[in-house]
Structure formats: structure tokens, C-alpha cells
């Protein structure tokens, strides 16, 4: 690139990109936060595909016969501590038309308004990430506009070494995104797909609403062999046509962002009933309550807990406060508490 071209590119970036402040829209892109646990076996189309390990990332599978283990791995490129590892444990080499397997993270509509999607001022979006596998492979990264059923996908290659992939998606002047706390936008990776999704003519970097054009014929099936692995980290999605260096955030910042969707209170997962429990505030009286405040989440969460010495009879919790009553017992407490309000 000539000096003049470099300067022109720099001018474009300064004009059209967010060059300061928080650039990465992806939460937990460095895969450092894993509140629920660090490994999940037996992930299939019918079990365990929702959020189970690294925060903000889940699977979506349809009909396939493959099974995998997902984990937070310390195998990572220089400058990163962790990656998300997928390890195929049961292969599926007969791909029926409707089969699919997707790795994804989703965004509230109010957090992606800066795309100006569906307007004449719509912005391009650049996605970057580091990947590696057990062997060469080709997969597909997709932006999905949930509100308007529109999508744009591009292929990328994986090798046995860590490689940074960057893909810029053209601006979409069709379909505005809802400005609310519901799921409006998903960044996802197609790792297995039947002809329902591959049967048409795939073209990289085109917004459309046709299922059989999402994935190209040369997309690798992650389930083609039990040797298959796929690692990913450093996932970044930013406004503009330039991939900037990955924006590292502190663990505390990233954890706080994750807790809007999943909040593992006290020492969740340890089963500790000594130091990490919420005790009946009225100790010796029936109609006692357990109460604990927490940062407000995306909406009222589903509460998971283990109880000792009682049975909860009433729940007047709200978003930001656990408030549970047992009208028949005294010395009761709850522990191993997990609050979830994922997208």
C-alpha cells in the first residue's frame, strides 16, 4: 500500500470507526469468565446445548447426531490466557437436510443501535477472532439480524496453528433493530449444516433472508470425526471496516458485563454450606425469609438454588433482590445460587 493509500485508509477509519473508548461489542470475547463451570460433556442436539461453560456463549443444534465436550481451555494465542474449546466425542457423518450446529453469542437490541442498521447511514461491521483446529477446516461466520430475519455470512479457514481471522460485513440499509433488552442480533459460527442451509448458492458478504444460501458447499462438518477440535478466542465485533487490535478488558469489568445475563452468587458450584449461604433472617421464627441483593440483570432472572432445612413457600423476588419465604420452618438457608436471564 502506498503512503497516500495508507493515509486515505487512516482517514476512513477515523471518520467511520470508533477509534477510542469501548470498541468491542462482544462480552467475554477473551473467554476468561466461566461462572457456571469450565467443562461440559455430552452436548448434543437434545441436551446441554444452552449456556453451560464460558459466559455469553452457547450452542444451537438441530437434529444432528454429533456429541461434543466444550471447555474453557488454556490453549490460547500469545496475549490470551483462555480459549473456548470444542472436542467432538461422537461423530455424525450422515448429514440429513435439516441438521445444523451453531456456536453463538447474542446481543440486546439497545446495545447494537450504533450499527444504524436499516437506515441510510448504516455502518459496516467488522468481526475478528483467533481460531485453530486439529486439522484444516472451513467454517462460516454469520451475522444474524433476529428482528428482521436477515443474515450475512462469510467463510473462513482453520489450520493447526492459531490464526487471526478478520471479516468485514457490508452495511445493511434494510431492517432496523429494536431498541430494547431483547435479542436482536446474533454473531454465530456454522460448524455443521445440511442441505436446508447449503443447498442454494452461497455468496460471501451479502445480506439476505434465504436459509439455503447461508453456508457454502465446502463448509466442514465439525462432526466428521472424533479427532475434530475447534478452538476460538479473541472474538471482537466492532463498527467500521477496520479490524483493530483485540480490546482486552479487566476480569472484573468482563465479569460485571456477564452478570447482566448470568450471576453465580457466593461460591456457586462448590456446594459450600458454611461460608457461602443465605440464612433465614428471622432465624428462630417461622415465616422467615432469605434475602440478598445483587446488581440488576437484563430482566427478572430464573433462580436456581439448593435449600437446607426447609421448603420455600412464597417468592417475592424482584430484579436485583432475592426474597424467599418459608412459612413452616425456622433454621433454613439456601446456597449454590445461580441467577440466569440469558438471551
Amino acid at each position, binding site marked *: 500500500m502506498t503512503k497516500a493509500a495508507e493515509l486515505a485508509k487512516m482517514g476512513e477509519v477515523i471518520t467511520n470507526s470508533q477509534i477510542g473508548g469501548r470498541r468491542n461489542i462482544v462480552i467475554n470475547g477473551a473467554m476468561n469468565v466461566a461462572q457456571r463451570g469450565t467443562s461440559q460433556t455430552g452436548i448434543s442436539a437434545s441436551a446441554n446445548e444452552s449456556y453451560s461453560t464460558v459466559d455469553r456463549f452457547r450452542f444451537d443444534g438441530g437434529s444432528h447426531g454429533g456429541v461434543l465436550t466444550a471447555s474453557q481451555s488454556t490453549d490460547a494465542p500469545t496475549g490470551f490466557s483462555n480459549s473456548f474449546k470444542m472436542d467432538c466425542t461422537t461423530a455424525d457423518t450422515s448429514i440429513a437436510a435439516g441438521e445444523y450446529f451453531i456456536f453463538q453469542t447474542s446481543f440486546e437490541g439497545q446495545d447494537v443501535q450504533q450499527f444504524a442498521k436499516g437506515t441510510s447511514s448504516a455502518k459496516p461491521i467488522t468481526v475478528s477472532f483467533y481460531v485453530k483446529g486439529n486439522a484444516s477446516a472451513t467454517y462460516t461466520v454469520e451475522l444474524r439480524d433476529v428482528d428482521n430475519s436477515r443474515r450475512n455470512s462469510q467463510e473462513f479457514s482453520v489450520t493447526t496453528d492459531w490464526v487471526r481471522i478478520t471479516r468485514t460485513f457490508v452495511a445493511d440499509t434494510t431492517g432496523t433493530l429494536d431498541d430494547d433488552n431483547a435479542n436482536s442480533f446474533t454473531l454465530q459460527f456454522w460448524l455443521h449444516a445440511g442441505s436446508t442451509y447449503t443447498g442454494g448458492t452461497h455468496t460471501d458478504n451479502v445480506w439476505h433472508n434465504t436459509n439455503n444460501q447461508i453456508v457454502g458447499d465446502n463448509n466442514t462438518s465439525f462432526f466428521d470425526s472424533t479427532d475434530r477440535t475447534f478452538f476460538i478466542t479473541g472474538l471482537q465485533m466492532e463498527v467500521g471496516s477496520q479490524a483493530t487490535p483485540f480490546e482486552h478488558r479487566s476480569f472484573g469489568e468482563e465479569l460485571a458485563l456477564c452478570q447482566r445475563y448470568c450471576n453465580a452468587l457466593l461460591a456457586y458450584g462448590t456446594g459450600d454450606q458454611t461460608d457461602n449461604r443465605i440464612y433465614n433472617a428471622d432465624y428462630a421464627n417461622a415465616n422467615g425469609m432469605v434475602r440478598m441483593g445483587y446488581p440488576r440483570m437484563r430482566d427478572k432472572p*430464573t433462580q*436456581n438454588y*439448593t435449600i*437446607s432445612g426447609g421448603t*420455600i*413457600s*412464597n*417468592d417475592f423476588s424482584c430484579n436485583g433482590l432475592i426474597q424467599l*419465604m418459608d412459612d413452616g420452618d425456622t433454621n433454613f438457608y439456601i446456597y449454590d445460587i445461580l441467577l440466569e436471564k440469558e438471551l
Partner: protein
Amino acid sequence: MEFNSAKYLYDMEGVNKTHIQLNLGNSKFKHIVIDPANTDYQAILEWAKIDGNTIEDAD
């Protein structure tokens, strides 16, 4: 979602249903907010449509 039983929980006045309590066994419970927009709640309503499945009223 696997659980042994489901029942409604009420507010302090005992008037309004606020949550569905799922008994997961081994003293583990899950409370799902009653909200038509809540996907967990939608899943329980689908479960309740199957013959033999019932969301019990509060004790």
C-alpha cells in the same frame, strides 16, 4: 429441562402467582418468573399441555 414436580408460588398476600417452582431433586429448586415473554415460562406451559403433567397449586 428435567424436574420432578412443578407448583405455583404466590406473593406475600397469597393473591398473585409470581413464580413456578420446579423441584429438581436433592433439595435443588428452580424458580421461573411468570411472564408470557419468558422462554422458561413458555417451556413449562408447553410441558403442562401434555397429558398427566400438572402445575400444582401452592400448599
